[in-house]
């Protein structure tokens, strides 16, 4: 029953290695990060001005907004540098049978 709420969003081999991959699931735009600490998933939209974070610079730990260079921790969603002040919406995620799954 617990597994019913985990949703497949992308196959692991389709992820950009050490980068952020854009994924759309059920109309939700997601950013899937291949971080130094493993895979994490957030909403793709920056909380400041709405830019798509998947087009930003990712260094393995932090994702930088492509429009204003605000910074988020890609594992926790914490807002790390101006102009962003609000954390990213993160999705609980796991790797299961070769796929990235999120809990919805």
């Amino acid at each position, binding site marked *: 029953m617990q597994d019913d709420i985990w949703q497949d969003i992308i196959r692991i081999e389709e992820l950009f290695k050490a980068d952020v991959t854009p994924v759309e699931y059920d109309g939700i735009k997601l950013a899937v990060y291949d971080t130094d600490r493993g895979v994490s998933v957030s909403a793709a939209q*920056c909380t*400041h001005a709405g830019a798509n974070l998947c087009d930003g610079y990712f260094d393995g730990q932090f994702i930088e907004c492509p429009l204003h260079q605000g910074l988020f921790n890609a594992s926790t969603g914490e807002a790390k540098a101006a102009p962003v002040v609000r954390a990213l919406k993160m999705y609980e995620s796991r790797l299961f049978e070769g796929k990235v799954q999120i809990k919805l």
Partner: protein
Amino acid sequence: MAADVLTPITQALEEGTLTRKELKNLMQRSDKPALIRLAIWCVLLAITSSLVWLSLGSWWLLPAMFIQGVVLVHHFSLQHECCHYTAFKTRWLNDLAGNVCGLIIMLPNRFFRYEHCDHHTYTQIKEQDTEMIELPANLAGYLFYISSIPYWKAKFSELWRHSLGRISEDDKQFVPRQEYRTIVFEARLMAAFYICLFILCIAFQFWYPLWFWFLPVVLGEPVMRAIRMTEHVGRPMISDMKSNTRSNNVSFPFQFLAWNMNFHAEHHYASSVPFHALPELNKKLSNHIYTEPRGYLGAHIDIVSQLTGRKPRVDRNVPGAYSVRRSQSDTE
């Protein structure tokens, strides 16, 4: 939640102008190019400072201070790059260099960052773009802007206002509430530094800061105003990045001083691409942006032509010019 926006770079990716792999390669950061350029920069400053030193007490002082000033005001270009965190890979180096540059040209770094972010969101949209330089009404207005009088008036007012702890309604459009104290603190710090230096100069009759720094910056600022005008003034007042920004093909010395920011349309397309990769980005985007082949001079010919009626003004009959509306979430 902020409204979903289509940024220029997302648009470029969707249109196939750039591939994601190309973009990610161009975005790669490094400290080395900026450190090398900064070392040359310091040598250049040593040379221009020597010119001022050698000309002290003669009429050559004026041209020497002007040359020194042209270099000094270009600290704006480095500060601008730092505010995007694209000068250095090491993030704190950008903060350090940005603040030093800001002190040199009296532009508080944190406030500039917020203001400049807003400029990237609402580029060339009248009454929304906080850095917008409007097309002057006539030649007199054009020359008045280049004189830098309105610029310095605005900057002194800004520093004074923030030093007094006041955040204006316009500032509140782009500075988050949580950052008001930081903006006030940095303004007070900067003002206190200038006041202390001024007092020391008087107390010890030590006037070198005047000859080597303050007067050169005042003399050089019109050059920077003229360069800043070439970026957007006279371009269509619409949100389409393909036409609202002007890149300029300029000579190597000016490109060096500008930290490649003459590739301005490329920068607006992908502001996460560091200065050292902008010439490469220029090759990818050359057919998708507006470039003035005659450089800064050509841009001013274009602007003056609009002021003198030789070309239609871009601020006349612009359908859809004000289609972008400020989001409340910008400063929440």
